[in-house]
């Protein structure tokens, strides 16, 4: 391996463009080529990047690593083909449509232990989440008691026609597409969960997948995490509350290109029971973050894994598998939903 990682991108839509932008900025990366059945917009934006006529052609070209930014239906096929072609792989979430998809990917990874495989759970790299993790890990606010996460988007014009809501293409609805980020964050803070209660529904949209999922998860220590994942949240919302024995941390908003989830803030306070000061209204600090480094850090982490042969610690296949297992445990936790036409695609 030289000092430069040569990169190809499969899937040149919105995520492919975001990844291309970060790859181009990184001094140790060279964006060599890309493949997409409809590459026009990408070609206008990145005119110097070679376009391949097929995924197979891209995998035959001189690239060291491949970013897979395709709709879920094509994800496992592309990831497994890239690994079998001897390429390191960065794969967007979710890692396929079904549990079987991620299990097949893990099996391919095990056939090629020298290759790096990382999944795009970029929320772990957001400033607010990193700040919250540092505070939790410092132990200064005690031990985690419970988590409450809300991640909702509004849908909108054309929402029902998006590939994400086509069961054949996506596999599931908002929980699999966006809620999986919050489940990954629950695991980031608490580790494994052993018990799941849930209700899942298609409350509003005329789509063959769910638009709302509510879940309660309990870990082996008895800590409970509550999730609401929604595509009927008419005002976009991201909220992760972490309550600890000595205080609380609340991450609100998540920086995005349109700022539709609002400012990214972390509110931190120590519980306040001192005599002479108002109880239930503690001194609170709200930290605002001016930039979202998550894409940059995630890509940099992947390149560092390749160049220095270090293990993938954030976005590993094990984390992807466990997040998918939680997604499907939530689906299966609601018998009524599983008997409905909105039930997810199964292997």
């Amino acid at each position: 391996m030289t000092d430069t990682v040569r990169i190809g991108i499969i899937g040149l839509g919105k995520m492919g463009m975001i990844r291309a932008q970060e790859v181009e900025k990184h001094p140790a990366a060279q964006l060599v080529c890309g493949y997409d059945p409809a590459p026009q917009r990408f070609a206008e934006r990145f005119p110097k990047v070679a376009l391949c006529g097929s995924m197979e052609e891209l995998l035959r070209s001189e690239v060291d690593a491949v970013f897979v930014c395709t709709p879920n239906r094509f994800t496992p096929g592309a990831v497994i083909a890239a690994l079998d072609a001897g390429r390191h792989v960065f794969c967007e979430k979710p890692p396929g449509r079904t549990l079987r998809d991620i299990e097949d990917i893990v099996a391919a990874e095990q056939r090629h232990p020298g290759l790096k495989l990382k999944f795009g759970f970029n929320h772990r790299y957001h400033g607010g989440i990193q700040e919250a993790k540092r505070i939790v890990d410092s132990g200064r606010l005690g031990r985690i008691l419970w988590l409450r996460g809300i991640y909702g988007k509004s849908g909108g014009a054309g929402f029902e026609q998006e590939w994400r809501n086509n069961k054949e293409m996506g596999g599931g609805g908002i929980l699999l597409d966006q809620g999986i980020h919050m489940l990954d964050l629950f695991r980031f803070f608490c580790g494994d969960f052993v018990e799941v209660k849930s209700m899942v529904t298609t409350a509003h949209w005329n789509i063959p997948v769910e638009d709302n999922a509510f879940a309660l998860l309990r870990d082996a220590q008895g800590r409970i995490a509550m999730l609401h994942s929604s595509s009927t949240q008419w005002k976009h919302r991201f909220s992760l509350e972490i309550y600890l024995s000595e205080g609380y941390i609340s991450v609100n908003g998540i920086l995005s290109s349109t700022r539709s989830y609002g400012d990214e803030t972390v509110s931190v306070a120590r519980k306040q029971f001192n005599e002479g000061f108002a109880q239930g209204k503690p001194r609170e600090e709200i930290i605002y973050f001016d930039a979202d480094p998550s894409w940059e850090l995630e890509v940099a982490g992947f390149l560092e894994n390749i160049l220095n042969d270090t293990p993938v610690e954030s976005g590993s296949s094990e984390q992807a598998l466990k997040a998918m297992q939680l997604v499907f445990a939530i689906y299966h936790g609601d018998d009524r939903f599983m008997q409905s036409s909105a039930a997810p695609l199964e292997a």
Partner: protein
Amino acid sequence: MSRRMKRVVVSSGLQEAEIRPPALLSEFKRLSLQDAIAFFGDPAQLVETPCPACGADAREAVFKKHEFLYNQCRDCESVYVSPRPTDAALERYYAHSRASRFRVDHYSRDTAKARRYHLLASHANWMGQIYDETGNRDARVYADLNSYSPQIFDEMHALGVFDTLLSVDPLLPPERESSAPVRTIARAELRDAGAVSAFEKIEHQFSPFDYVRRLRGALAPGGLFFFTTRTISGFDLQVLWDKTPYIFVPEHLNLLSIEGISRLLERCNMELVELSTPGQLDVQFVRHALDQDPSIRLPRFAGYLVTRRDALAHADFQEFLQKHRLSSHVRVAAKKAGE
């Protein structure tokens, strides 16, 4: 400004009187003004300086307070006293003036409990968090410069982040006021520190540039410098301007703008980690200034807001000031950058 820099908003129900009791503040100000005449009354002993933040010479005289001329930098818009007392004269003042003694004997001790709750505990948590985030884990020495609130060491000790706590040239010796294991040293002995704090000190340095550069030399690689000060960019100073009762010589020689603070740190090869204005008192300051001097004329909107609107509007407005770095109380974390 650093791309990943943070801003902070704080709410704790702080009232001005808790940390600045009017009677104590009034006496401290009276003594300061008398001492200023005694120590710096001879104009021949004063020296001209360029902008203490960005170093530019171009300036405009904006107002006079107690016979000292405040200028505004045409470049970064910091406001500063020039001509001003020399470094040596300031050192004599802080060592021997009645105002300095009063601050230690009365002001600091009488407000210790409120300062600890509202200021020191949060300062300690703030420094601990930033150190966790970006500090040099091999440099576990913490030092506070010219401290007159030794309880900061109790808070830092409770954090358990630093191995060694140093009080550098303290105004109030820590031995009787703090139960933490603190060592007192002279400024020249300070070296390889992982974190140094200077609360409300920058505003009365003869040269903030020299002060930060010297301090940088005492930091370990990647060491952190934390400070608080008043900024002229803040609401109360902007609307009260020369009528503010809260600035006086020699306490406030330098009222750096937000932009000026960034430039100062850049010139000193320090990387900004956080630049926030978490002040909770701007609206109260303006209100109290009006109460004391009804002849003050504010811009119409500011006057209406402060005199006619309720506490909820004031709290929301104060939060807006914090969020957009428009409060006059500023806190800064900066990291020693490479050569």
